[in-house]
Each structure stands twice: as C-alpha cells, then as structure tokens.
C-alpha cells in the first residue's frame, strides 16, 4: 500500500552496499573485535543514513549528526547535556499543555480504562522515541511516520547485511578450501 517502491528500495540497497563496502575497506585491521564490531555497526548506520538521503525523514540527519561530531569529548558531553535539558523542557511543556484537568478531576479519572490506556501509550511512545534516532524532538504523528520509514529501511539494511555476511562466509571458506 504505502511506502517506497521496489525501485527506490533497490537503489537504497545498492547505495547502502556501496557505502558499507567503502567504509569496511578503509577500516583498520588492528582493532579488537569489540572495536571492529562497533566500527562496522557505525559504518552501517552512516551508510544507511547516506543512502537514504535527507529528504522526507529526520532520522538520517540525526544519525549523521551524532556520528560526525568531531569536537573533543568534553564538548560532546556538554552538547549531550544541553540536548537532555532541551528534551526535558520539551516533554514538560508537552505534558503541562495536555494536563488541562484540575487536580480533583485527575484523581477521579485516574482509574478509568482510557486513562490507563493513555498512560500505556505514552510510556510506549517514550520508548519508541528512544529507539528511533532523532525521535526525541518529534511529535507523535511525525514520530509514527519516522518509525514507518525507519522500519522499512531497517528491513533493507538487515537484508543487505545478511547477504554480505553470507557471501563473505562462503568466499572465505572457499578460499580456505582452495588453500588446502
């Protein structure tokens, strides 16, 4: 029904694969496994963000901005703290804007099923915000939109990564057999 067509997804996969291979080629071989895994993962994220382009979604920009910050670590900590403060202010404002009811009304309504449902939904949107890059600053509607976009591209990313790892496994073992 909705969603990027097959052609756009194939183009995305190809772009993602290309960027991924590039970054993998340029990665140093002298890191430990943990570092390598992190490098591969970050290169995969950046590759996904660049292949997606900045049009029509916010998460690529969020990924790129979080990965390409070249400031020293102290600056990064400050930036993160400022972002947390802004986030808290945004959430507080949102919450206070919605809590138009008085104290008594709130306690009376607290036990109704709709209130429970609403609280559950709010909890889950909070979790979703944390998972989607750049989701903290979005309102609920665009959050769902971003989630859709992100899920589609995650599917494609998992496909490509699976293919690459299978192909690599096959190639390396065949290389080994060749040696023997």
């Amino acid at each position: 029904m909705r969603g990027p067509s097959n052609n756009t997804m194939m183009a995305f996969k190809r772009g993602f694969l290309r960027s991924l291979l590039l970054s993998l080629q340029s990665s140093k071989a002298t890191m430990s496994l943990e570092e390598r895994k992190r490098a591969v993962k970050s290169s995969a994220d950046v590759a996904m963000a660049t292949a997606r382009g900045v049009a029509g979604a916010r998460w690529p920009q969020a990924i790129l901005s979080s990965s390409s910050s070249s400031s020293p670590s102290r600056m990064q900590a400050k930036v993160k703290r400022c972002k947390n403060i802004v986030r808290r202010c945004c959430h507080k404002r949102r919450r206070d804007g919605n809590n138009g009811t008085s104290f008594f009304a709130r306690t009376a309504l607290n036990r109704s099923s709709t209130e429970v449902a609403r609280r559950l939904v709010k909890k889950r949107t909070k979790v979703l915000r944390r998972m989607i890059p750049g989701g903290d600053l979005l309102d609920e509607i665009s959050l769902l939109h971003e989630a859709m976009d992100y899920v589609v591209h995650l599917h494609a990313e998992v496909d490509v990564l699976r293919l690459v790892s299978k192909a690599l496994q096959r190639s390396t073992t065949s290389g080994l057999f060749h040696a023997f």
Partner: protein
Amino acid sequence: MRHHTQPPEVPGAGDDIRDLIPVASSASGSAAWSSSSKGEGGGGDGSGGSFTALLGLPTSQAMELLLPAAAPTFPADPHLVDRGARFSAFASPSPSSASPNSPPPPSSATATAKRKADPADRVSKGKAAKKGKTAAASGEDKDWGGDGENDKPAYVHVRARRGQATDSHSLAERARREKINARMELLKDLVPGCSKVSGTALVLDEIINHVQSLQRQVEYLSMRLAAVNPRVDFGGLDNFLTTECGRITSLSYKNGMDLEQVTWPDMGVNGARHLMQLQQHFWHGDLAHPLQPPSQWEKRADPHPPVFSNSSSSLFGYDLASSGAQPQTGKLKMEL
C-alpha cells in the same frame, strides 16, 4: 487554536499557476477529486479506503490540482479547492519522494470527507470561497494539528460529523486522532503479526519489539562481519558482491525470516555445502583471495545467533583468542 502565517512559496506558486491552468484541466482534476471523494464518503469512516483512493494519484496530478483559480468557477465544491491547495502545499516541497506526500494528504482528506456538513463550517467555507483566496490563506480555518513533517502548515476544512461537537478544539483533536490512527494502520501493515492486534498500546508494543529485534539483528550481523573483516580482501569482493547482491536484492524481508531460521541449523552442515560452492567458485574464478592462514577457521566457531546481547562479544572474544590450528582442524574434520 494556532494560526500560522502563510508560507511564502504557496501564494507565489498559486498565483503563477492560477493564470496558467486552463479550465479543462481543472475540470478533469475536480472530476477526479469528486470521484475520489465519493469513494471516501461512501466508504464509511474507513481511512483505509480513502488511502488507497488518494494514493493512486501521482504527484504530478496532485500538482495540477492547484485549483485556486477554480474557486470562482466551482463554487459548489469549495472543499475541492481546499484539497487542491493543500496538495500544492505538500507536493511542492518534496515532489521526488512520494511517500511523505501520501500519509499527510490522505489523512487530511479523511478529516475532510465527512458525510454531513455542519452549518457553521459550511458558512465559513462559503465565506472562504467568496473571498476567492487560496484555501490555505483563509485565516479563520482550523489549522492542522501537529503537522511536523513538512514545516508548512496548511489549513484543514474539517466538517463535523452529525451529532458531534463542533468545538474547534475537539475538531482539531479529532483530526489529529484520525491522522494518528491512519499512521497506525500503515504501521500495522509494515510490522508482521500486527494485524490481529487492536488498540494503540498493543500495536505500539509490537512495533517496539519489532524495531528492537531489527536493531539487534543489525548488531549481530555487524558482529559477524567484524569477525570476518580483517582477513578478507575487500577489493576483490566488490565485483562478487555487487553481482550477487544485485541479483538477490529483490529479496524481501518477509522471506528473510525463513532464511534466518534456515541458516542457523545449516551451520552444522556448512562443510558439505561449502564443498559444492567451492567447486563453483573455483571454476568461475570469481574471487582471487590470498592464502588464508588456517586460523581462519576460528571464525566459523562463532556461537549460534540467539545470543543477542553484549555478552556475546565476550564469547566471541574468547573463541577468537583461542586460536590454534589443531583444535580448528579437528572441528573441520567433524564438520566435513
């Protein structure tokens, strides 16, 4: 109620195209709109039906539906004018990407495609038509709550259903709720196993689980790649991967789940499979790899995938640290 100022581009575009659009094209556009609106109106309040009707419109046709010029000529259908103007507001910023276009306009159209018109709203619409401005410019209309994607707020002519409150707040809230519900429908289609679940909280739960599992899969796959990484010459791999992956990139994710369950038991019989594949590669000469040291084998000892946590890294580290040709060749013999 928020009042947003008119974004500068839309009147400019509207003015130019107002002069250019002949009546014929606007007539055909309005005909298309009226048929789609009938489809929506007749389709109950199912937002799904209206989605498919409106998603069929390509962006170019949507651009053509700038009907501010048609306002004086089609006074009977002022909401068509609104929808046309709204499409212009959303089509212009991102004409290339169809996907962001499709969710906002259909949800706005579902907001507008109510069956019974409220007299107050009709009055306001009549006023808007009389003024002859573009619909987006009329200041007294409801704005679109929570329009975050395009940074270009447009105005929604919402017709209230019969017997429902016509309060401006509740109308805006209803529009917002309908948008959210429309998006939840789309998300339900994306996430497998979500169609039977009803209710926002459970669907959100499923979505969260799905995204988490996807992210963990990415982490696991990147771990595998990292394990293979330093020993493979990626230069030679380029051609191989692009040809092979080009063939298989059409593989959709839905098959991916089965693949996953299949590959894991396959690890036990990897040796036999690779023997066959070795012959293929050997004959095709796809890859020119340098001789790999026998310690290569240790990466095949990676533990089975269900270890989806950071502790898996320590497991890997342990396995890789215990390098040595002897135990690995022993494993090789077992697998063969």
